[in-house]
């Protein structure tokens, strides 16, 4: 069962503080910049 006793962050806050979100996003932005410089 989900942990219901501890105070929880909102889903958005969980996402924005998750490194699993920032690493792919950072790589995507870098990829778009690289693509722009290549073309």
């Amino acid at each position, binding site marked *: *069962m*989900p*942990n219901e006793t501890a105070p*929880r962050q909102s*889903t958005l806050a*969980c*996402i924005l503080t*998750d*490194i*699993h*979100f920032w*690493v*792919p*996003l950072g*790589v*995507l932005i*870098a*990829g*778009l910049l*690289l*693509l722009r410089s*290549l*073309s």
Partner: protein
Amino acid sequence: MQSTLTSALASQPQQTSRARKLQLLGILSGFTAGAWLGAAEAPTKLVSIGVSPLVISLIMVVGVFLARWSVPALILGTSSIRADVRRAPHLIIWAILAGCLWAVANTMTIFAIRDVGLSIAFPLWNSNSLLGILWGFLFFNELRQAGLRRWLGVLGGALVMCVGAALLAIASSSAAPVAHSYRGVWAALGAGVLWGTMYIPYRKAYLTGMNPLSFVTFFTFGELGMMSALAVSYLGLAPLWRQLQSARDVLFWLMLGGFIWVIGDLFQQYAAKYVGISRGIPLSNTNQLWGLLWGTLVFGELHGRGHSIYAQVIGGSLLMMAGVAAIAFSSATTSEQTRWKQAAHRESQRYNIAADYVEASMDGRQSASEAKPSRTAIDWLLVAAATAIFIYFGATARLPQIQLNWPAALALSAASLALLVLCGLTLHRTTRFH
């Protein structure tokens, strides 16, 4: 207390046997993925028209989009997808992010092939498996407490596969590297980094309990959205439309390529789920071997080339097979799987997802709180619409005037279908496609 301990001890061999079954299933899924991802290149080889590679990629993605909605609807039904999304809505963001990463990487490969040729580009972007190992280790506890033998098996196997891939790519490339070599190398490396990073969302979704069939339906929004944006921004709307019009006769073959690619990708997703990304990515990278088989046996690509080329092909293939074998025999130990479960527990705590759902999903079964998947009229409508679109484009398609080795094409198709049936049935029996 004693009875709990006794039942726990009694269930331990059962759990180990289940874990072993899932590992074998993941390895089989990886092999099947390789066969179908490789076969996806075949319909695109039938197309030799003067349209932009971006347009070819975009049309393939349209086929992918149709397949990604109709196949899951047919197998599990959209009610199951909706239930998955209600449990873990945050994963939609990761699915779209992964789709965007795929589209940008795919576009980069076009630039890489143009600038340095396939022989240099392919091994460079195949290095995505090494990055996958790094991300799997850093973020998802993969290969933790795995022991030296397994580390050597996975890392050594992936490196050997990269060398094999390089040999195959050199042999299968007919064009010498052309100008802008630095630009091409950067594009190929960029594609490898993007594809390697795309597996972070995959693994996160499956550790959290999302069904691969649910994940891909949202992944494809990122894929189609980003690909459309890139095509419009690079070509402009009017030229893009003109090129689509001029490619009307071959749209079917490209969309078919996308459809076959989705079958391969679905198995790749199950491989990532059951053996992790560090092992799943290298196994599905065997698509290069299958692509080469299609190219040489069916399309006669190496016909009339020197002995050294054939030696390179045989050597590269053997190296790739050796690497695959090393990875396949390095399945996760019980202690490593305990670390995977810790990573899954962390995800369920962070996003407040029911632990029984996460645990059941990792074990490849339905949780007690989940409703049995069922198909509704919407699902049949989706399947019928996708089928109708394919039939329409099939009816308007032009038969390509190209020499094919039909016995080889039939043999390879039969082998791919046999793998599909074998893996599909095993997935159904073992996990009911969970």
